[in-house]
């Protein structure tokens, strides 16, 4: 291989690509601008909806409220978040109004159960609501929280009246303590976001260059021009591969950089005070950046080889898109399946290419890296990259494929190759 020629061909591919609007948009602008912007929009949208929901008033009717608990009813009435409605309508009519969305919940005081009746003033409650309506479901949660608070205070008063000691009573209290720091919360959020976006960006950023370098050239009629230059075909194929791989890797890394830099801006609406901690902790842990960079590079090399293998058979841009699409979906599928934060990184997952890189990146961000799994994953992925490049090189070494006289796609090429070999044997 003549490295000088490959460099000349590679520079030529990149120069043409950087002047192609679609490639610049999908491989550079999209990773840098659009996805962080979309994320920001999504987070801003979520916080807007949450804000709207918190300002919502819950319309409630209370039936059979005992005078002993009028304090509770009065407290609800005084609460801005509740609109306690006086109504003469019977129970069936109220349930019908909840179903229609004209009322959010019906609260009915009932006599306590047989065991509970021993305590004077004890009571039961039935909340009728409509789970199919968001406002009604939220009202149920609000009512439960208010009731729980009132119940605890009432029981506390009653146990004091009965002479139950404070220390004995304390044994029954449940105290919640969240040990996650703001940095842990950041890592958790990034662990879900970054692997998915990295894989998506690498795949999207490779997509157009792979078609442009093959079918695009044929459609523009520059393929034959390139085939008539003095450079060996292997050099042309190597330069095209480098071009696609560099754009794929750049897409992933640019997205990562943009995401890291805009972290505070994106997460501010939902993280509130936490966002300050995100900024000081730098978002992605520095120790994870190297792992992410290596993972992104391996993903770029693998995805590019795969895409070129399919696209090199296409004669037009449209044909190239349809030939690559199944491989494209196969590549991005792990991004969706592995979003579950509880999914465990096992040795089986470490042996599956692409999936293992997503998990390695996720573990590095969340600070749960297992050296054995990480090394196994990187080894498996490197082997797969070598195999993919070798296979792509074998496909592109075919005279018929390179000059465009091969009919059909990769499967027909393989069928023809193996049929001929069998016939020769």
């Amino acid at each position: 291989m003549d490295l000088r020629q490959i460099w000349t061909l590679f520079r030529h591919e990149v120069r043409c690509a950087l002047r192609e609007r679609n490639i610049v948009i999908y491989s550079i602008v999209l990773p840098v601008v659009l996805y962080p912007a979309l994320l920001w929009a999504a987070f801003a949208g979520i916080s807007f909806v949450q804000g709207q929901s918190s300002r919502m008033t819950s319309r409630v009717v209370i039936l059979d409220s005992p005078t002993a608990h009028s304090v509770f009813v009065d407290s609800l009435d005084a609460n801005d978040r509740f609109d306690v409605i006086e109504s003469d309508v019977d129970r069936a009519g109220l349930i019908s109004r909840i179903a229609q969305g004209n009322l959010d919940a019906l609260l009915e005081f009932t006599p306590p159960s047989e065991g509970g009746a021993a305590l004077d003033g004890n009571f039961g409650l039935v909340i009728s609501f409509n789970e199919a309506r968001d406002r009604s479901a939220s009202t149920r949660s609000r009512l439960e929280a208010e009731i729980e608070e009132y119940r605890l205070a009432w029981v506390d008063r009653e146990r004091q009246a009965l002479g139950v000691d404070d220390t004995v009573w304390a044994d029954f209290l449940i105290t919640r303590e969240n040990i996650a720091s703001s940095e842990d919360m950041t890592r958790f959020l990034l662990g879900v976001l970054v692997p998915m976006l990295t894989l998506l960006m690498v795949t999207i950023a490779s997509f157009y260059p792979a078609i442009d370098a093959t079918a695009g050239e044929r459609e523009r009629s520059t393929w034959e021009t390139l085939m008539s230059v003095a450079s060996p075909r292997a050099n042309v194929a190597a330069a095209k591969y480098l071009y696609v791989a560099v754009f794929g890797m750049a897409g992933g890394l640019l997205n990562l950089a943009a995401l890291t830099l805009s972290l505070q801006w994106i997460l501010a609406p939902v993280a509130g005070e936490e966002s300050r901690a995100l900024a000081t902790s730098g978002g992605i842990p520095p120790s994870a950046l190297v792992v992410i960079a290596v993972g992104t590079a391996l993903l770029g090399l693998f995805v590019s080889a795969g895409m070129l293998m399919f696209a090199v058979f296409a004669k037009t841009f449209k044909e190239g898109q349809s030939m690559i699409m199944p491989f494209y979906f196969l590549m991005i599928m792990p991004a969706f399946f592995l979003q579950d934060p509880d999914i465990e990184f096992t040795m089986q997952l470490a042996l599956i290419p692409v999936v293992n890189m997503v998990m390695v990146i996720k573990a590095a961000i969340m600070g749960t890296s297992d050296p054995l799994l990480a090394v196994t994953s990187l080894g498996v992925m490197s082997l797969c990259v070598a195999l993919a490049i070798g296979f792509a090189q074998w496909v592109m070494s075919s005279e018929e494929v390179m000059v465009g006289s091969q009919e059909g796609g990769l499967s027909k090429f393989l069928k023809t190759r193996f049929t001929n070999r069998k016939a020769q044997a």
Partner: protein
Amino acid sequence: MPEVRVRTEDLTKVFYDDGRGEVRAVDSVNITCESGEILGLLGANGAGKTTTLRMLATVLAPTGGNAWVHGHEVREAAEQVRASLGFYSASTALYPKITPRETLRFFARVNNYPKARLEQRVEYLIDRFGMESFSDSRVEKLSSGMKQKVSIARTVAHDPPVLIFDEPTVALDVLNAIELRDIIAKLRDDGKAIIFSTHIMSEAEQLCDRIAIIHHGRILATDTLDGLRQSTGHHYLEDIFVHYANSSGSDDAIGMVSDEVVG
């Protein structure tokens, strides 16, 4: 003293078609082309001209026979063959997003033109083909006449001794076609060995030193225009072509000629 720069020996190309089976697109073709000579390859559409030239340019591999370009065998030394020739056809387009200057620089460099003299060569070509006014505009913005100049300059960027022009005037208007023929004639005067394929009789008459008549993949005759006239007793090339096509024994010869070969 002219040297033989292109030589074929029973050059053959067989395609396999699902519907038609074995198709002999080029059948035992023997031609030569010397330095300072334009050899016209004259034939109807589908006669095998483009396939022959693509084999010479190593864009297609021969299935039989052999060919040599500037002493290099097309199968064994494909890179050297491509370094020794410039290939121009209606289907070899330019890169639209780069400028003529970048185009020439790229093709000279990738075809192994010495780096030390590269810029000098690029400037020479820009000057020679009159591209000063648009050498730094993107190719996509140029008129078809300007693009044609860039295409020819691209073909000769690495100063190859052999040039192949495959139906170069097929998509050009009359004025551009005349200009192109003038350029090709000047390149012959520079000592280039040129193979020029066409189905336009007048073009072959005006430009070519010798004419090879190709029909159904076979060369029926190769001679100077005067030699062909003497051999057939016909004055006009169209009549000469019909004479050979009919004598080749193919039933559809006259039909094809009247449909395709009227220049």
